[in-house]
Structures are given as structure tokens and as C-alpha cells.
């Protein structure tokens, strides 16, 4: 069940769309911001708010890799870019470093549910490679020290 808060926020953005079906992305984003991931029940709820069939919400959720559909993540979601520019500038090393640091494999979540680590394709920040996104923020020109600092600052 969506919380009243999330429901209210979604209702708030519906106004911006002439065709309610178009509000699907925004609605999913609101849910994910709040809960970190999107459940089946969430998709059904969004469908009834939008007046569409649940499968049409699932289509959107499943198409965009940035939605964590049915994939619970930790409090913070680390997404390291491993596309071309970042890889040339050591993304592979960055991933290994974080895996060792957090004692998890890519795709995994720390036991305290604090972090989930994923790799993603180009985030359009090649000029500042290597880079990662944690939750909704970009962190660029990464080094081991920077990473230590950044992750320490996230509780």
C-alpha cells in the first residue's frame, strides 16, 4: 500500500499531465525516492491512480533500468558507471574497491542494509569520469580517498 504521503505527492503531479498514463514515470520515481524500490503492490496502486492496467505500469518500470522494480535496495544505492570513458579511467578498479570495502559483490546489499552496489551504463558525465551516482547525486573524478569520504558521510 502506498503511504498517504506518496499518494498525495502522486496526486499532486497528476495535474501536470493531460493523459494520465504519461504520469507513470513520475509516479514511480516518487515511490522509489521514498522507499528505494518499487513493489508489485505499488505498481497496482499506481495503475488505479492513473486508470490504466497494472501491466502498463510494469512495462514502464521494467523498461527503465533506473527503477528498482521488485529489487529492494539498501538505504543508499551506489551506481557505478562502467561504460567506456569510465572504464578507460578505472571504473573496474573502483568497483573492486567498493566491493572490498563493503564486503559485498556487485548487485548485493550490505548486511546492515546501508548500501546496495550496482553498475550502470553511461550516466552522461564522461568528462568527469570515473563517476558514480549515489541515490540522486553524482560523485565525479573518483579516487579511493573520495569514495571513503563519500560513503562515510552516508549513514
Amino acid at each position: 500500500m502506498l503511504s498517504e504521503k506518496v499518494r498525495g505527492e502522486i496526486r499532486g503531479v497528476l495535474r501536470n499531465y493531460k493523459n494520465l498514463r504519461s504520469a507513470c514515470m513520475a509516479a514511480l520515481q516518487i515511490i522509489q525516492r521514498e522507499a528505494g524500490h518499487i513493489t508489485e503492490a505499488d505498481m497496482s496502486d499506481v495503475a488505479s491512480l492513473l486508470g490504466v492496467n497494472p501491466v502498463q505500469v510494469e512495462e514502464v518500470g521494467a523498461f527503465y533500468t533506473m527503477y528498482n522494480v521488485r529489487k529492494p535496495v539498501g538505504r543508499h544505492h551506489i551506481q557505478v558507471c562502467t561504460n567506456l570513458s569510465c572504464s578507460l579511467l578505472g571504473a573496474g578498479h573502483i568497483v573492486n574497491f567498493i566491493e572490498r570495502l563493503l564486503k559485498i559483490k556487485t548487485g548485493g546489499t550490505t548486511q546492515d542494509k546501508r548500501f546496495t552496489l550496482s553498475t550502470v551504463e553511461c550516466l552522461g558525465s564522461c568528462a568527469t569520469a570515473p563517476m558514480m551516482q549515489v541515490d540522486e547525486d553524482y560523485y565525479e573524478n573518483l579516487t579511493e580517498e573520495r569514495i571513503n569520504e563519500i560513503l562515510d558521510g552516508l549513514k
Partner: protein
Amino acid sequence: MNGEKFVTLKVNGKEVTVKEGTLILDAAREAGYEIPTFCYQENLSGVGSCRICFVEIEGQKKLQPSCITPVMADMNVRTDSAQVIAARGAMLEFVLTNHALDCPVCDKGGECELQNMVWKFGPRKGRFTEKKIRFHEKDYILSPVIVKNSNRCVHCMRCVRVCSEVVGKAVLGVIGREAHQEMTSFVRSYLDCDHDGMCIEVCPVGCFMRLPYRYKARHWDLKSAKTVCPYCATGCRMTIQERDGVVVRSIARLGSGFNGRMMCARGRFGYDFLNSKERLKTPLLKVGGVFKEVSWDKALGVIREKFTRADPKKVFGVASARLTNEELYLFQKLVRSVFNSPNLDSTSRWNENASAAFISAAGIPGRGTGIYGAMEADCVFIAGAQISDENPVTDYIVRYTTAAKRNSVIIASSRAMKLDSSSRMSIRHLPGRLGSLLNATALSLYMDYPERLEGTPGIDGIKGKTVEGLGQVSGVEVSDIKSLAGVLRGSASVSILAGVDFLRFREGILGLRLLGAILKTLGKQLEILPLLDRSNQRGAWDMGVHPLFGPGYGEVKEKGLGVDGMLERANEGASDAFYIIGEDILSMYPDRAFAARALSRAGFLVYQDMFMTETAQISDLVLPGASFAEKAGTFTNQEGRVQAAEPLLSPKGEAKTDLEIISAIGSSIAPGFTGADPQRVFEEIRGGLKTYEGIFPGLNDSNGVMVKGSGNTLKEFEEVKEAVSDLGKNTSYPYYLITGNHLFHSGRLSRRSEILRGLLMEPVIEISSILADELGVEDGSRVMVNGRESGAVFSVRVKKGTPKEVVFIPENFEKAPANRFFKRGETVARVNITVHSSF
């Protein structure tokens, strides 16, 4: 149509001229060249995703997908160049990279588009060595009729498109992307959908499959026959197939009928009643209250004795509108010229004066009206029809043919329906008050053009009234009436789709006639297409199975009684002999108690059908008839499309076709009566009825043949006393009950299909979402429905968009017959509803 431009191009060197905007694919087909396709599907939006249909166009470096590329003048297209052939093979190789290739265990094997294509166009060898993507291990079940294997998918998306663009359900989606995408339901869950199997029919490979046909046969094991669906007057062309005497599937094929691949759940899955063990196999005579098997000779002897001794005025005949034209024709001949009785009818649900007036108002005695032509009108006005449930494929055709225009469809009904979402405007009027809405619309048009419309027949009847007043009676806002009138005024062509609610509620017919006359006077190009529920209802009328007119809508020497009158007479004890074929009056007549009483006093009652129906049980003699699958003959659908059918099986046991039985009864009383040769009977029809003159529908005629004008109009039946439903305030019974056919059922025949029964077990009541909220119930909750004299428990189905006061119970459920709630003469029953607790 006017103003259309044509272009000429060359395909493989051959010149063709086609309409501007035609796809290269269609132009090539017209020129006689076949181009293979996967994702392309007639009637669906183009996606151009599979690239099998590549062609080479002179002057363009890259090959182009012919299924989404329109022609241009002077194009020079090649469909068979070396480059094209190589590209086809390459695209197929791609498709095969992730295809399961488990043909030996796939139900589609032998009739699979992928198999056929690879066989024809190569590649003989794949070069990909990567591991194939697997979506799941075992096939999964998606509905009582659908089983799914995604590992065979070629990603054509036909299933997803057909479900939303044609069926209008949109319950299938594309989950994931690229090679990982899977076309399935929400989280692969069990579907609560229309179960029409359109997704199965369009799937080129073995992904969507029929559950009831699973592992039953290869297509070359099957014997097929072309026939017509027995479940509604859309009259879908279908091919039924049997193996070892058991019918295992019914399919709709591209190119074999006007409906292409379209069928609804009833047509596609309702075939299995044919195999039922309960089919009647011998004549049964009631002796001392119990049925005894008797020979045909004995049965015919009894009939001869009873019917020749009867007073002709007290002989009644009813033949179901499911029989073939030949049978119906012979039936009326039997009743009129052998029994010498004028009393015959084809349905027990509708009053004969109303049906005659409706037939006249809808112009049925005139020529046929093709649905595709009707859809080209600027405005398609659907009134008095529960089209999405009663004529599902008509609903599909309306949806997909008008989608591009968006704005042409207007619906007037008292119940919400699936088609609402494809309409520009859906008007909800009170049950039984369609007439006031039509009159209000007519009046609004009259006020715009008083001079031009002066003298239009029927106009005087509405002159003293006001749009506001009529609007109020019908429960429709004046603004809606004005917009409807506005759209009609602004349209150069109008098609009215008029359904059987005109007959069910016995009203609105005069309004329909008036509106039609007005539109004609205003110079609109007007088509009226009747939407009928029983498969051969139009045929029955054409053949003159009606007490007020004869074959071809000709005059009869003496007007007779319809079922209403017959039952009334029977009830008074003024009935000597009653011959009923296939019409289960007891379960269909809109006052069950009265029908039961009347039939028990009906004199000698002969009932002929495939099953021991409720009416059969109270009869004196039961004759085993045959199904559509056991007959040769013709059917005329609601459009006036005459289609031929061939038999697949022979009648069960000693059962006979209805034609044989009618003919045998005729000859036993009047030697020399017409024989049971359908072809000969059809010749007689062709010779006697203007409508059928020169009509030769062949089995391979994919469009059937349209009837012609009969020259008669039935104008003498125009005036009809319309019913006024009682919608007065009644706090004990606040809801208006209406009835009709359920999406999965047609009368009671479909209830003999195990597969259709499996789609929905319990009797349902459809209520509005407002009422559901008020009662605190949801889909599947139980409610108690009480009428003045009877009550029953129903499972709830919630429908958004239906007014709160309106509830709907399908006429099909024997456990809770809808006609129990009705009293003779009452067209809207009143009920109350309470939450049912099983404790």
C-alpha cells in the same frame, strides 16, 4: 471514395496502381508477390520491428521494411533480389538466436510461421554460439484457456497490440527490453480478461497457446469444416476441426471470412458442447410422466396424429434463430401450409409487434449493410446495444476501424461497456428510456431546421415537447443531447448501430424511425445496422418465421400469434399442439413463472433440440436435433451477409438435422412435402425471395454474399405500442434490473460448453462502482438480490461508469435465471441488493 489519389509503381518490374498511402507490402501483394512478415498484422498499428519484410527500392541504399513504408509514385521495388533474400535469411538467423527450437514438443509445430519461414528462406545453420535467453523453465498458465511459453517468442508484439487495439483490454504488456523483453500479463499473473484468445490466434509461434488444445493434435491429424459461429449474429466465419470424432478447436483464419482472425471467447472456445455426452440421441416420448425412448416412426406417427387432429388456430410453432436459413424456411412452410396455422415465431423474448416495427425502422427488409462500410461514416451512433458483451467481434471492428478517426463513435446505453473508452461520447440513459433520448435528439434537430423537417413522419408526436423535458425523462443532461444532435448535424454520413435493447425494452423504435427519417431528410448518408444476438436472427426474419409477415417480408394471408400470444392462449387452455425447435422458452421468456404455467397447459408439446433443456423436460415428445457442426446450409448475419456452412460430423446417435426432421414431419402429414436437401431448399428460397435472388454463397467466399432489397418495407407495422418502464421511486426495490447476454454466453446453449463454464462458474451481477463502494463489496463478493417474488445469491462484478441505480444480471445462468425477476409486460425489473454473509 471521392478525392482519393492513386499512384503507379513497379514491383519486380510489374506495374501496379494503388491508392496513395498504400504500404509497399500491400502493393506487392496486389501485384501477386508474397513478402514474408512477422510483426505485420492486418488491422494493427505498424511497428516494423522484425525486418523480415525487407524490399529493395531502386535508388535507396538500404533495404526498407515494406510493412511500414508507403508507396511513392514511380518507385521501383524488388522483393526477390539477392540482397533481399540474403537479408531475410540473416533476420531469421537473428530471430533464432534466442528461440527455443523445441518444435517436437510445441503445439504450434506444423503450422508455425517461424518454422515455415525458416524452411523457405533459410538459414540452414546458425552461427551464434551464445547461451540462449530463457525466461522460465516450464510453460505457465495465464488463464483457463491460455498457456504461455516465452522462450519461443519472436518479439513481434502482435499479442500486445491485438489485446489493446482490437480487443480493447490492454492486459498484456512488454516487460523488459531488447532480447530480454517478455510479452505477458502483469507479473505473469492469472488473467482476468475477455479470454477471447486473440493473443493466441495472432501469435506466429508457440508462445500463446490454447490450453484446451494442448498436446491434442498436429494440424494434419485434423479434419476441418468451414462454418459460422452459432453464438451471435456477428456471424463470424470459423473453421472447426475434429480428431477421431471429437471437436478439438475452432479457428478463424485470415482470408477465410470477413472477420479475419477475430473471434470472441464464445466462438473460439465454445465448441466443446458439440462433444457433450448429454447430447440427445433418440426421440423420447413421455409415457406416464417419464420419458421412454421411441423410434422415429413412432414419434412421427404421434406427431401426425396430434397435429392433424388439432384445430389449426390452436397450433403453435417456434423455431430458434440458430437454425439454418433452409431449416427456418422449411419450418415456416410446415407451420403455414401443412399445419395450416399462422402462429409462428423465432424467439420467445420479444414481442412480435415490436420486432416487426424494429425490422421496419432498421430497414432490414432493404439491402444488407456491411459493417466495414458503415464504419466509414463521419458519425457512428450505437444505441440500444450491449455491443461489447453481446456482439464482441462487432465491438472489435468498431474499435480498430474507428481508432484512427478517434472522434466518430457515440454510444447511448444504460450500462457502461468496454467500447466506451473508444468513443467520443458515451451517454447513459435510464433503462427503458432510450426513446426519450432519441426523441429529444430529434427535437433538437427539428428546432434547428423547422422548415426542412416539417412533415417528417412522426415529427408531430414530439412537437409539443421540450428537449429539457424529454432529457429529464431519459435521465440525460440537455448538454449531452445538444452535443449528440450537434455531431449528427455536422456529419455528412451517419451509421446507426441499433441493438436488441430496442426489443428487450420494447421502446425507442419510434424514436429510431423518427431520427432516421430526419437524418435522411437532412440529406445525410444514413446506414442502419442492426446488432442482433442469436446467430441467424436476421435469417429467421428473412425466411418469414414471424407471425406478421412471410418469407421476404411479404404479406401473409392471416396474421398469427407471437410467443406472447401463444402462451396467453395456452394458459387459457386454447392450445392443441405446440412444436418448438431449439428455443428454451422456459428459461428465456421474460416471466418464468407465467411461461411454466402456460406451457404446462399447452396441449401436445413437441420439443426438438440438442439437449434436455428445461423446456424439453416439460414436453410430451422430445426430438433429438443437430448442431450447426452437423449441418450444411446457410446463415444470414446481422449485416445481411449470407454465408455457407458445411458439416464436420454427423448427428449424434439417431439424431437428425433439423431440416430432416421438419421435412419428415411435413411428409408424414402431407406426402410430397419438400425433401431434406439443403441445396434444393435454398434454390426454392432463391426462387421465391427477392432478397436472395441470384445469391450463391460458396464455402470459399471469404465475404459471403450480401442480401438484396426485398422490395417490401413492413411500413404497415410502423406504429407500435411502446412499453413504459416503471422507474418510480421505490425504497424497497431501489435498483433497476436489466438483462442480456454475458460476454461468455449466448442464451443457454453455451452453458453446455465445459470450457466456457470454466471461465466463469457462478452467476454474476454487475453493479456500478458507486453502489459497490456504498455496499462495501468488490469483485467476487456475494450479494443477495431480491425481487418482489424471488431472490438469489450472486457474485459481484464491479463496472465503472454504470449509473448507481442500474444493475445487470445475464440471462444465461440456470442457477439463478434472470427471467425469474421479471413479470410479463415489465421490461425493467426492480430489485434490492444486500450483502450476503454465508453464516
